[in-house]
């Protein structure tokens, strides 16, 4: 059992009223973490459900994207001096128990940023199309990195204070996943991966990126890298 770290769990959420309560209950069963939901302009009452459960919510007035929500989480951590920040998807895809693996990896490898990888060693049942797009994203992201990563698009991540201080995300959309890794390498942070489990339901698959959004994400990512 890894030494318990004082972790704040950030859940970026957009219209997750259907499942957010279950996600929070699952997290509470694992540990007594500080949970902060970043409500990215939801219109389905996500924030109200979170508040009713006694957890904290930061509400974006407008929907700006997962990247913007993550940067808000990082800004909060800086403001309140939270030493460890974990990001988890709000669609029920991730298992909160896997946070233990991220903690163990961070401590064992002295890593600053740990990414939960769906493709590293575990036999996850990932839809074929999702696997294909993730492979394409990995190829693109890894071409700008010095190390090779197996899951550059995973939203399950753990940051320590060095990473919290160093990472200034500019991408609003899902390309923040790639941006975070590239920025971490540029800041000479230690980035590690650890296997995680993932569950895909019709609901969680519908919340992910489709082909058109994926293409736009890749375009924005390349544009920002080239033209800054």
């Amino acid at each position, binding site marked *: 059992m890894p030494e318990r770290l004082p972790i704040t769990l950030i859940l970026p959420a957009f219209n997750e009223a259907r499942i957010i309560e279950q996600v929070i209950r699952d997290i509470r069963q694992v540990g007594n973490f500080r949970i902060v939901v*970043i409500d990215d302009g939801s219109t389905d009452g996500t924030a109200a459900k979170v508040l009713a459960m006694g957890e*904290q*919510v*930061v*509400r*974006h*007035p*407008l929907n*700006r*994207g997962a990247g*913007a929500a993550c*940067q*808000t989480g990082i*800004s*909060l951590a800086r*403001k309140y001096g939270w030493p460890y920040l974990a990001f988890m998807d709000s669609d029920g895809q991730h298992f909160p128990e896997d946070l233990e693996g991220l903690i163990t990896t961070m401590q064992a490898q002295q890593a600053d940023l740990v990414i939960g990888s769906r493709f590293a060693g575990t036999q996850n049942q990932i839809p074929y199309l999702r696997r294909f797009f993730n492979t394409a994203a990995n190829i693109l992201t890894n071409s700008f990195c010095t190390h090779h990563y197996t899951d550059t698009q995973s939203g399950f991540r753990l940051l320590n204070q060095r990473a919290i201080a160093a990472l200034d995300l*500019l991408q*609003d959309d899902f390309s923040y996943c790639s941006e975070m890794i590239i920025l971490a390498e540029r800041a000479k942070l230690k980035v590690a991966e650890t296997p995680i489990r993932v569950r895909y339901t019709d609901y969680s698959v519908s919340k992910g990126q489709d082909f058109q959004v994926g293409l736009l994400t890749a375009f924005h990512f390349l*544009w*920002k890298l080239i*033209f800054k």
Partner: protein
Amino acid sequence: MEIRFFQVVVPLVALLFMANQALRYRRGRLNLGEALFSGLLWIGVALLAVFPDEISNFVAALFGFKSNTNAVLFLGLGILFYFQYRIYRLQVAQRRAITELNRQLALDRFEKAQAPS
């Protein structure tokens, strides 16, 4: 030289715009640089309308295009592409500004909610 309809209308319209820009400059709504640039632009438009073949042939020869039609098409595309690039950069900057405002507002509200009443 046969005078075509647009060779009369376009210079007249250009003259009107130049007069308007001159008035705006006099009223202090444009600086000298903007007024001069605008004037040169409209003079260029008028000249292009009065001497379309001569100017397009000159441009084609200058850039090595096969014909003046190609020159107009490709240079036009190039100009459009440039403006599209400028617009996209503006849009990216504005998106970033909106996101920052959005985030700051959210953080300020959260901080106020956390403050002891």
